[in-house]
């Protein structure tokens, strides 16, 4: 399940609701990952653009991979502006097995950072500035420049 929110994600509600949703599913391990906006470099927050069609197909491919391992994934992300000390990203894996869950949350979050079609902007001095220095070209980028 993929959930998008305008502004901060409702972290507390998500952590509890997801736990309750799977309370009877007989998963032994639940590992959420929560990303929160840090106060650094004088920003007042971050802002995000999302291209939903490709985010959804990327997420669906991961869900299929999780299903094959007996696990499931849930994810929520913010659109637009997110203030300091609030959260923009919550992802979670549920699995019968601890080791599967620990590996999957790592691999999922790392691939999310490298592949999910989301663009980050610093909010600074009333401006919205693309975070080019922290961004990663998606695998296979550059063919149009050849």
């Amino acid at each position, binding site marked *: 399940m993929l959930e998008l929110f305008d502004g901060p994600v409702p972290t507390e509600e998500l952590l509890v609701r997801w736990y309750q949703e799977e309370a009877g599913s007989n998963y032994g391990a639940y590992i959420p990952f929560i990303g929160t906006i840090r106060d650094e470099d004088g920003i007042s927050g971050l802002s995000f653009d999302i*291209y939903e069609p490709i985010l959804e197909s990327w997420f669906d491919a991961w869900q299929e991979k999780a299903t094959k391992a007996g696990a499931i994934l849930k994810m929520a992300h913010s659109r637009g502006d997110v203030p300091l000390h609030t959260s923009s990203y919550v992802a979670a894996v549920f699995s019968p097995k601890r080791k599967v869950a620990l590996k999957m949350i790592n691999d999922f979050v790392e691939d999310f950072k490298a592949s999910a079609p989301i663009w980050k902007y610093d909010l600074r001095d009333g401006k919205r500035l693309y975070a080019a220095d922290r961004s990663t070209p998606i695998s296979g*980028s550059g063919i149009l420049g050849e």
Partner: protein
Amino acid sequence: MVRVEFLGPIQKEALEVEASTLRDVAAALQSDAEVKDWLENCAVAVNDTLVKSLDTALKSGDKVSLLPPVCGG
């Protein structure tokens, strides 16, 4: 004609381009000063599926999307 869309931080309106493969799209964009510098860092999707070959065939009505470097989370 195919429609070329620019995502995220690329501040540019969509274009209509005459193209039978992605190679034709590349040629059109390389002569466009506004987007030229983005090309070597952008991934490309055709009808919302990422593609990795300039030989990808296109037909009229297809949507080509340029995805600059990402940073979710």
